[in-house]
C-alpha cells in the first residue's frame, strides 16, 4: 500500500464525513407531506422533539400516522397535533395522560393501535438492524396476539412482530454533530436511538450542535449514518409531567 499517498489524501480532506445540517425545524420537516407515517421519539414528555412537532403544527400537515410510545398531554407534545386533528392513526403503548386523545378514540375519530412497549422498541430496532420481523413473548394470550402468527421455541410461545416502516423518524438528542452523530441524556434516550435507526428519513433536533470531532466516538449512541438531517433546536420547554421531590 502506498502509505504516503493514503495518508496525504486524508490530510487533504480532513472533513470526510457527510454533512447533514439544516437551518431549523421548518427546513427539516419541509417535505413531510399529508398522510405520512412518522416515528416520534420520547417517553411521556421526556426527550420529545419539541421543535419539529411545533414546525409540523405550523406547516399544517395532516392525516398523519404517528408511531410514538405516548401521545403527549392535552396541550403539549403530540397532544398539540391531536388537538388540531392532524393525526389519523396513533400507534403507541400508553396514552393515559391525554383526555382529548381518549375522547377522539372513544368517539371513533382517531384510529389507535396499542402495542406493548417492548414490542414498539423491538419493532423499531428490527427496522434499524435490517431484521424483517422479530419474536417476542409480550402479548401472548392477549388481544394483542389476535391475527398474529405465534410460534413455540423451547416450550415458550412468542409472537412474530414485523419491523416498522416509517417515512420519517423524528428524534431529539442532547448533543449532536454535523455528521449526524447523537448523544442522549439519561432517560431522555428511551425510543430516540431506536427510531433514529428506523426512519427512511431521520431528522434529529439537538440541544447542542457541535463540529465533528468534538464528541468522543465511544460515547455516541446513534452513529451519524442513521441520521439524514440535523439542527440545533431552541426554546426547549422540557415540561415535567410529574414533578416529584424529596426533602
Amino acid at each position, binding site marked *: 500500500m502506498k502509505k504516503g499517498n493514503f495518508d496525504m489524501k486524508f490530510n487533504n480532506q480532513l472533513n470526510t464525513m457527510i454533512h447533514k445540517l439544516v437551518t431549523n425545524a421548518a427546513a427539516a420537516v419541509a417535505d413531510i407531506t399529508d398522510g405520512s407515517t412518522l416515528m416520534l421519539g420520547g*417517553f*411521556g*414528555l*421526556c*426527550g420529545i422533539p419539541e421543535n419539529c412537532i411545533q414546525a409540523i403544527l405550523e406547516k399544517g400537515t395532516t392525516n398523519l400516522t404517528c408511531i410514538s*410510545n405516548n401521545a403527549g398531554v392535552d396541550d403539549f407534545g403530540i397532544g398539540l397535533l391531536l388537538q388540531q386533528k392532524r393525526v389519523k392513526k396513533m400507534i*403507541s*403503548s*400508553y*396514552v*393515559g*395522560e391525554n383526555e382529548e386523545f*381518549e375522547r377522539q*378514540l*372513544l368517539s371513533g375519530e382517531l384510529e*389507535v393501535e*396499542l*402495542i*406493548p*412497549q*417492548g*414490542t*414498539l*422498541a*423491538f419493532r*423499531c*430496532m428490527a427496522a434499524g438492524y435490517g431484521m424483517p420481523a422479530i419474536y*417476542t*413473548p*409480550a*402479548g*401472548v*394470550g*392477549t*388481544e*394483542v396476539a389476535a391475527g398474529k402468527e405465534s410460534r413455540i421455541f423451547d416450550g415458550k410461545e412468542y409472537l412474530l412482530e414485523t419491523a416498522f416502516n416509517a417515512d420519517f423518524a423524528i428524534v431529539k438528542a*442532547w448533543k449532536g454533530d454535523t455528521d449526524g452523530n447523537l448523544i*442522549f*441524556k*439519561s*432517560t*431522555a*434516550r*428511551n*425510543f*430516540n*436511538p*431506536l427510531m433514529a435507526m428506523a426512519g427512511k428519513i431521520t431528522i434529529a433536533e439537538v440541544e447542542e450542535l457541535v463540529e465533528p470531532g468534538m464528541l468522543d466516538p465511544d460515547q455516541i*449512541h446513534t452513529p451519524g449514518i442513521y441520521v439524514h438531517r440535523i439542527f440545533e433546536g431552541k426554546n426547549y420547554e*422540557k*415540561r*415535567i*409531567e*410529574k*414533578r*416529584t*421531590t*424529596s*426533602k
Partner: protein
Amino acid sequence: MLDKEGIAKRIAKEVKNNTYVNLGIGIPTLVANYLHEGINVCFQSENGLLGVGPFPKEYAVDPDVINAGKQTITALPGASSFDSAMSFGMIHSKKIDLTILGAMEVSENGDIANWKIPGKMVKGMGGAMDLVASAKHIIVAMQHVNKAGESKLLAKCDLPLTGKNCVKRIVTELAVIDIAPEGGFVLIERAPGVSIEQIKNATAGKLLINGDIPEMAL
C-alpha cells in the same frame, strides 16, 4: 386490614438481597420505602434506567431523568441508562429477578388484567405485557375488591388480559395469596385482624385453605 403502605410493607419482605427489581406504578412504588436494612436491591425503570434512586431535591429536579411513571427521579452511583430495546431486552432475557405491579383482576390460574376496560378506559399496556411475559417472579399488589365491592380475584378474568399464567403471588389489604401450579388461590397469610371468612367472602375464585393460616408479621 392493611392500608396501601401496609401492603407495600408486606411486599418489601419478599424482596431478596442482591436482586434486580422492577416496580410498577402505585402501591409497588411504595415498596422501595420499606426494604429491610441490609437488603441490596437495584431498581430498574423500563423507560431506560438501572439504579433508580429517590426523588430529587427540589433544586436537583431534571426533566430528562424520570421513571416509567413519569415522575422525576435520581440515579444512584452505579446506575446505567440505555434505550428502550435494551431495557426490554434485559426484561425478556430474564435478568429482572422480581416484578411488582398492580392489577384490576387476577384469575386463579395466574392470568392478569390491568390495562383496559373496553369502552370505558383506554390507557394502554405500556410495558406491562412485556414484564408479565418474562418476569422470573411476579407479585401483584392490589386491593382485594374493586370500588363497586366486587372481588378482583376471579375464576376467570372478565377484562382483556395483560398476560396468562404469570402471577405467582398476590398481596392485598386482606391477605397474601399464591397461585397454585394447578390453579386456585392458596391462602398463605391473613392481614392483621382479618378472618378467613372475610377473605373467603372477598374472593370470587377458588380459595384453597390448607391448615392454619398465620397472621402476617410486618
